[in-house]
């Protein structure tokens, strides 16, 4: 991927492994490279166990033992031109503290567990603002009310004193978004922000994220398993399978002209794509455990186009450029183009 100054985040060859007591290493993220454009939305999509969340957590250095970032760079480019390698920062440094919640913030999947039940909403949002911005308490409150109004919480000023249990699920997720955006971060990481929500609330929350993203110019790293959400939200998509990116391009190319067999199969297996009740084309088997990643292409045991002697030997295929900005990790990508 070309290096340009318009990238907010550049992750290069990131490897996050987990080490078990038995001495095994689980390669949850194994050599991932991507970048997030300024004011752009990159979606990382994949099934459970593909490493999408570990990637997101790695960017904020939230990986705990027995996990470890063993290799790679996580370059954050701030608006004033500074480049911070988050992977290199000291665990307890002020700089990492400044990155977390200040320059980069995160929305988690479960709004109930992301909020403290014993602090009022106002307190929690103001805390983030006071930590990262040079303002006094009353200014912080003003900022908090403003951002709560932006995420569509009616009567924001009155609700500042309320506690999370007094909010419904959709409202809680709005509070979490407000908190994440209160410090005007340069990068927002959203880890399955709507997975726990009903489809109507999902639609509302996606709209809020998209509107605020456009208004504030925030860049977003959007983690999800839902290809339909990707279609509605993302500019660019990276599809992950077993710790590696298998396809990466702009949203239209990936969803309308997928080239990796995994992306193709994933899209075909979505119900409701076709009329009528014909059988769903499904992918054989299930995602293997990280303990037993297949040789060669990790997808070959489930791939309809796998060729023995080619796909099941050697190391995993690396991403190759097949069109402008379209990268696919498949050795047979040209042969199976028409299939």
């Amino acid at each position, binding site marked *: 991927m070309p290096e340009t100054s318009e990238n907010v985040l550049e992750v290069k060859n990131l490897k996050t492994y987990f080490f078990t007591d038995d001495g095994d290493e689980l390669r949850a993220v194994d050599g991932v490279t991507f970048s997030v454009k300024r004011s752009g939305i990159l979606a990382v999509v994949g*099934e*459970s166990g593909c490493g999408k969340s570990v990637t997101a957590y790695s960017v904020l250095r939230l990986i705990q033992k027995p996990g470890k970032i063993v290799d790679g760079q996580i370059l954050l480019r701030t608006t004033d031109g500074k480049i911070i390698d988050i992977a290199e920062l000291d665990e307890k440094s002020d700089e990492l503290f400044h990155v977390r919640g200040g320059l980069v913030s995160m929305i988690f999947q479960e709004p109930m567990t992301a909020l403290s039940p014993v602090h009022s909403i106002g307190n929690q949002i103001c805390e983030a603002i006071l930590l990262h911005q040079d303002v006094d308490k009353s200014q912080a409150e003003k900022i908090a009310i403003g951002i709560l109004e932006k995420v569509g919480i009616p009567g924001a000023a009155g609700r500042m004193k309320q506690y999370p249990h007094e909010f*419904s*699920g*959709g*409202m809680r997720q709005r509070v979490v978004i407000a908190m994440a955006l209160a410090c005007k971060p340069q990068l927002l990481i959203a880890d399955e922000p709507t997975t726990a929500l*009903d*489809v*109507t*609330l*999902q*639609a*509302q929350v*996606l*709209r809020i994220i998209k509107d605020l993203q456009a208004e504030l110019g925030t860049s977003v790293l959007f983690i999800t*398993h*839902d*290809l*339909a*959400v*990707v*279609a*509605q939200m993302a500019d660019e998509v990276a599809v992950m399978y077993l710790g590696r990116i298998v396809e990466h391009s702009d*949203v*239209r190319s990936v*969803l*309308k002209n997928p080239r990796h067999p995994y992306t193709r*199969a*994933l*899209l075909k*297996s*979505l*119900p*409701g*794509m076709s009329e009528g*009740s014909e*059988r*769903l*084309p*499904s*992918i054989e088997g*299930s*995602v293997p455990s990280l303990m037993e990643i297949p040789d060669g292409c990790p997808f070959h045991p*489930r791939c309809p186009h796998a060729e023995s002697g080619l796909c099941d030997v050697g190391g995993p295929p690396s991403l190759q450029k097949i069109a402008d900005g379209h990268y696919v990790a498949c050795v047979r990508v040209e042969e199976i183009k028409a299939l």
Partner: protein
Amino acid sequence: MIATEPLLSVRNLRKFFPVYSKGFFQRRVGYVKAVDDVSFDLMPGETLGLVGESGCGKTTTGRTILRALGPTGGNIMFRANGETVDLATIPGRHLKALRPKMQMIFQDPFSSLNPRMTIGQIVGEPLVIHKMAKGRELKKRVVEMLIKVGLKPEHAVRYPHAFSGGQRQRAGIARSLIMHPSLIIADEAVSALDVSVQAQIINLMEDLQKEFRLTYIFIAHDLSVVKHICDRVAVMYAGKIVELAETGTLFKDPKHPYTKALLSAVPSPDPDVKMIFELTGEVADPGNLPPGCAFNPRCPYVRDRCRQEMPSLREIEPGRWVNCHFDEELES
């Protein structure tokens, strides 16, 4: 579906949960109307979808039909062994004999299987409880069932932790089917699964339906799954069915404002089809419903009558039921 008599006829089903005041005397201060006046027929071999947002009462409806919860009122006429019984009023001691005919598939394949039992024991347990098989016969039937759902005979001696989510859900399906039930209530049966595995389980459920002539009530919040698998769909809001129609009709031409809104909230996997979603507010609290139509605070077409008078479910065309005062005027 050529069948004259429905397998299941639900009439005016109600399930209210009492709400008690705080303090020593715990007076009853009201009810949460989780299921309120739900009626529908289910033909043998049919798949009916129950959809709606969380808290709409779809799961409670499913559980009440199976008498996992006692209904507050209404009738649940169920055909079993050649006769029709009312599950709502039948004494508890007669229920056991009917249980083999109606089974449930649960959402979470991780918590619905006992981790201390082998897959073989889990799948065979219903036969043991109902004294329908033992010894070699039991083993034989368990193995047959495992093969039917796509597992291997040697899986019978393993424990649930050794299986993936999809395999566990297969085991859960095997357990529900081993007694050859006629009615299966699948409560979010594929929601916890990954997309690629979800498609496998949906196909399996469809194959088994054909083979055993099963009747499904498919409870789900994922409308694209429902669209694929169901013959008819009932949309629920605040404990009531607001619209009931054949799947194709419902998705093509929804009549109730809530159905319209719900369908518009489903994101399309096509990046060129943008989501247009206008509904504001949140699901009505079934313990504190507004007067009139429960949907009126969120309805974009609300009028005075909606705030005063509760609409009832009307058949506007054969097989097409809508619960709205003004559905005909909403055409445009």
